[in-house]
Every structure is written in structure tokens, then in C-alpha cells.
């Protein structure tokens, strides 16, 4: 006999979900709704009583602001290069770790470690090792004879961009490694044996056996990382504050600066809404490629 779901059961069920519903209403739905509402208001946090409805003026403002478009394109470049390098290094390292060798657990632990290092710490270390006069990176490069003049890593626009990309690649490469490694472990060994019998070398085996098997997981990882990387704030702000000048601004930094430095919360919120729209588009792609929730719909 199956136990029936009695009234008391129902009460337990509702009691258990109540804290979540409360927290979601007050601290998730309300702030996001408020963020959308603020995008249509002129809002100064020091004079909240003066907030007025301005319609689409905030959106007009950002779409006419050259800095918004600069931030948009810089974010695009930043995201694209970060993802490319993360994926290439991530797959490479996952292949290295996917070998039956003694001591592999130690290597794996060390190579995954960057993921849990606080962004503040990485930014501090980056500022130290990439310091133009006393940083170890310039020392090493000069010592090896690769450069004659010190590189101003954080104070020239292109190098600042390169430094933030390196930071981002370094921190999130483990994410790719873990996803790819998990998939590699399920690739049937027979496929490799068959390829070997057919005389395929290491490169051919990678291109013809491994890569097709990794295709699905890579698409999911890439879409997901793209969504996230595009909206990153701390990885840029803590290292360069968006500078030098505004050369490493992305939309998140733009929104933050509009809200904090210019006290235009409405403009910051409008930027946030634009980010959310792009995020939703990305998420739809993500849901499509990952086939998420299909089992639910079927049942």
C-alpha cells in the first residue's frame, strides 16, 4: 500500500517551501523588478524623493553614449579572446590529466586550484608580478632577451586588456578542465583501439575520435562561459578599474561607474536591462544546445 499524501503532509510540504518563497520574493524577485523599474526613472540615491519617471530617456542616453558602445565592443573582444584561450588550454590540460600515471591526483588538484582563489587575491598578485619596474614577469622577459624595454602591462590600453584576459583565462580554465575531463572519462576505449588498428596517429586520433566526442560538452561550456564572461565585473574592476582611461570598460563596469561615480542609478539600471536582454538570448541558446529540461517536458 502506498502512503497517501494526507493533509498533514501537505502542511509539511508548504512549511518547507515557505522560507524559500519568502526569500525569493524579498531578495530576488523584488530587487530584479526594482532594477528594471529604475531603468525608466531618473534616480539619485542622495535625493530619492526626487525620482521621476523618464520613460526611455535612460536608454536613449546610453545608446547615444560613445562610452557605452566602447564598453560593449571591449567586452566582446575580452569575452571572445578569453573563451578561445580558456577552451584551448582547458582541453589541453584535460588531455594531459586524462592519463593513467602515478600522482595524477596531485597534478589535478594543483591545476584546478586557481578556480577557488579569490578574485581580489588574483588581482593583487597580478598587479605585483606585472608591475613594470619591479615585477617578475618583466624581469624574466628581459632576462631571456625577449624584450628590451619594460612592458607597461597595466597602464597601456592593449596590454591592460591582455592582462585582464590572462587573469580571466587563468581563473576559469579549471572550469573547462573539469567539464572536459568528466566527458573524456566516458569516451569508450574501443574507439581508440579501432583507430589505432586503422593506423591513426596521435593527432588523427585526437581530431577524429576525441574531438567529435567532446563536441557537445564544449558547446555547452562555451555558451555558458560566454554568458558569464560577458557580464564579469570584479575580474576587470579589481585589476584595472576599467582603465587606463576607459580602455578595459565592459558593460558591468560601465553600469557600476554610472551608478557609483555619476550617481545615475537609472542609467546604470538601463545598462543592466540591456545586459539582461543579452543574457536571456544567450540562455535561450544555452537551453537549446544543452537540451535542458527536455526530460521534464516529456514526462
Amino acid at each position, binding site marked *: 500500500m502506498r502512503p497517501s499524501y494526507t493533509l498533514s503532509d501537505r502542511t509539511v510540504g508548504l512549511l518547507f517551501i515557505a*522560507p524559500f518563497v519568502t526569500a525569493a520574493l524579498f531578495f530576488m524577485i523584488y530587487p530584479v523588478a526594482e532594477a528594471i523599474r529604475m531603468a525608466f526613472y531618473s534616480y539619485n540615491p542622495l535625493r530619492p524623493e526626487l525620482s521621476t519617471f523618464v520613460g526611455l530617456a535612460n536608454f536613449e542616453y546610453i545608446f547615444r553614449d560613445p562610452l557605452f558602445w566602447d564598453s560593449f565592443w571591449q567586452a566582446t573582444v575580452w569575452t571572445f579572446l578569453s573563451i578561445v584561450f580558456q577552451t584551448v588550454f582547458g582541453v589541453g590540460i584535460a588531455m594531459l590529466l586524462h592519463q593513467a600515471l602515478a600522482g595524477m591526483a596531485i597534478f589535478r588538484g594543483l591545476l584546478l586550484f586557481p578556480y577557488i582563489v579569490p*578574485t581580489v587575491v588574483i588581482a593583487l598578485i597580478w598587479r605585483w608580478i606585472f608591475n613594470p619596474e619591479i615585477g617578475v614577469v618583466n624581469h624574466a622577459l628581459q632576462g631571456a632577451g625577449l624584450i628590451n624595454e619594460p612592458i607597461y602591462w597595466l597602464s597601456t590600453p592593449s596590454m591592460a586588456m591582455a592582462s585582464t584576459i590572462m587573469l580571466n583565462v587563468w581563473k576559469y580554465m579549471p572550469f573547462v578542465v573539469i567539464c572536459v575531463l568528466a566527458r573524456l572519462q566516458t569516451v569508450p576505449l574501443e574507439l581508440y583501439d579501432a583507430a589505432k588498428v586503422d593506423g591513426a596517429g596521435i593527432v588523427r586520433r585526437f581530431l577524429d575520435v576525441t574531438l567529435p566526442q567532446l563536441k557537445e560538452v564544449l558547446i555547452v561550456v562555451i555558451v555558458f562561459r560566454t554568458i558569464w564572461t560577458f557580464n564579469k565585473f570584479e575580474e576587470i574592476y579589481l585589476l584595472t578599474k576599467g582603465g587606463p582611461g576607459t580602455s578595459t570598460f565592459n558593460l558591468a563596469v560601465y553600469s557600476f561607474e554610472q551608478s557609483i561615480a555619476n550617481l545615475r542609478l537609472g542609467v546604470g539600471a538601463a545598462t543592466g536591462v540591456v545586459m539582461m536582454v543579452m543574457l536571456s538570448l544567450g540562455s535561450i541558446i544555452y537551453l537549446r544546445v544543452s537540451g535542458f529540461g527536455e526530460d521534464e517536458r516529456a514526462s
Partner: protein
Amino acid sequence: MTRNEFWGHTRRLVSYAVLCAVTFLVCFPLVWAVSTSLKPKSEIFSTPPTLVPHTVTLENYKALITGRPQYFQSGDQQVTSGTTPAQFFMRWFVNSMIVTLGSTLISIVISTLAAYSLTRFRYWGRTVVPYFSLLGYMVPSIIFVFPLFLVMVQLDLTDSLLSLVLGYVCITLPFCMWLMWAFMRSIPIEIEEAALIDGASRLQVFWQVVLPTALPGIIAAAIFSMIVSWNDYLFGRVFLNSLDNLTLTVGVMLFFEGTHVDWGLLMAASVLMTVPMAILFMALQRHLVAGFGAGAVKG
């Protein structure tokens, strides 16, 4: 040695060499930070830089942990450097601990109860909530940090650790919810039914049967929640003002204020900030990997 054995050995040797080189490159920034933190001031700026310090000193760590003001020579007088961020380091450390553990505890309790309710009882909306929650966790914090700050203003909680605890619940709860839901769903319902038939009450079943089974999921969710809260900078930066109330991430960035940056002290602070996460990582690495598998991860 047969030809096959020879190739086997060579392959393994090459694999190890490549692995070691890659691991060294990935870990180098962290190794360099540790090395700098152990050097006396004179050696930090020595050329060529030394990887292994000639003189090892714990001065930087002592200064942070004891929080005593630093003295330096001015003419023939010893003068203190006045109030320095280093004096607040341990206080910030404790603050970070409090908000991390507090928010994690709340997130875990709420999400575990909710996930149980959603997977074991039937009511309207029970299939929608987890997906809605997943959506919530895709929204970048930069979008709702200011509205949430205004909520804190209304609750008269600004510049308090409690505001930060609530803020972190807000960013970690959607993910914990999703993860716990996925985990609860995979626990077979038959064990519970058996216990219910044996006359156990719903709450007994939850406490004695479900919770122990769900422990790996709870641990994975807790690790992620702790990493996110400990590493956050944005919320602390927006919510907190007074030196006494800052968390580590926000506080340590203040080390850059003033004319002179003490890199040894800064690297020691970075190392100390990373240690709790490192311990967590080493102790629970396999759960971390399991957490990655359960769904895409915020970061």
C-alpha cells in the same frame, strides 16, 4: 628492454615533463606570492628576483596577525605609520568568516527544505520553481546589487554584517536550490515510503532518512556557497562603509591607498585570504568535482 617498453617509458617521461611544466606555469603566480610574503623588505626589490628567499621572515604575517602599527625610521626617530589597514586585518578575517558561514547556513537550510518539498509533494508550480531559480542564478549580481542596497536602506541594515549575510543568501540560494533539487530528485522515494509505512512521521523520515542520504549534495552546495561568499567583493564594497565592518576582500583593497605599497604585506594578506579556501578545497575536492557535474556553476 624491448622496443615497446622503451617507447612506454619515453612517453611517460615526456608526459611527466609536460605536466610539470604546465603545473609550474599555472601555479607560478601563487608560488611567487608566497615567496614574496616571506621575504624581508630589502630582498623583495632585489635584482635579479629570487624565487626561494635567501632570508625567510615571518614579519609580514606577524604584522597582519598581531595588528600592531608599523614603525619606521624617520631621521633618528621611530614613528608609527598611523592607522593602517594591516591593523584591521584579523577583524576583517573574522567578519568574512561570519558572513560566509552565516549566509551558507541560511542558504543550505532554506534550499534543502525547499528541495525536499518540491520533489516529494504535489502542488501548483512545483516543476517551475527550480527552473525559475536557475534563471535567477544566471542574473549577474551587478544588476541587482543597487536595488538590494536600497532594500537594506529601508530595513536600516546598511553597513552591517547582517546586510551582507542577506546579500550573499541572495546570490547563493538560487544555485543551492538548483543543486539540492537535482540531488533530492535522484534519491529514490521507496526508502522513505518504507519508513512511513513502518510508522515514522514525515519529520522523522526527513531528519533520519533523507538528510543523511542528501549529505553529499549538501556538502557540494555548501562548498560553492562558501567560495562565492568568501570571494565576493562587489556586495561588500556597496553595502559596507566603516573600517570595523569591512570584509577581507574590500578591506585588503584599501592597502593600495596611501603613497607607498607594501608588497610583502599585501602578498602575506593574499596568502592568508586564500588559506581557508585552500583547506576547504583539499578536504572536499571530490565533492567539488561532483558539484560541477550537477549543473553549470556560477563563476
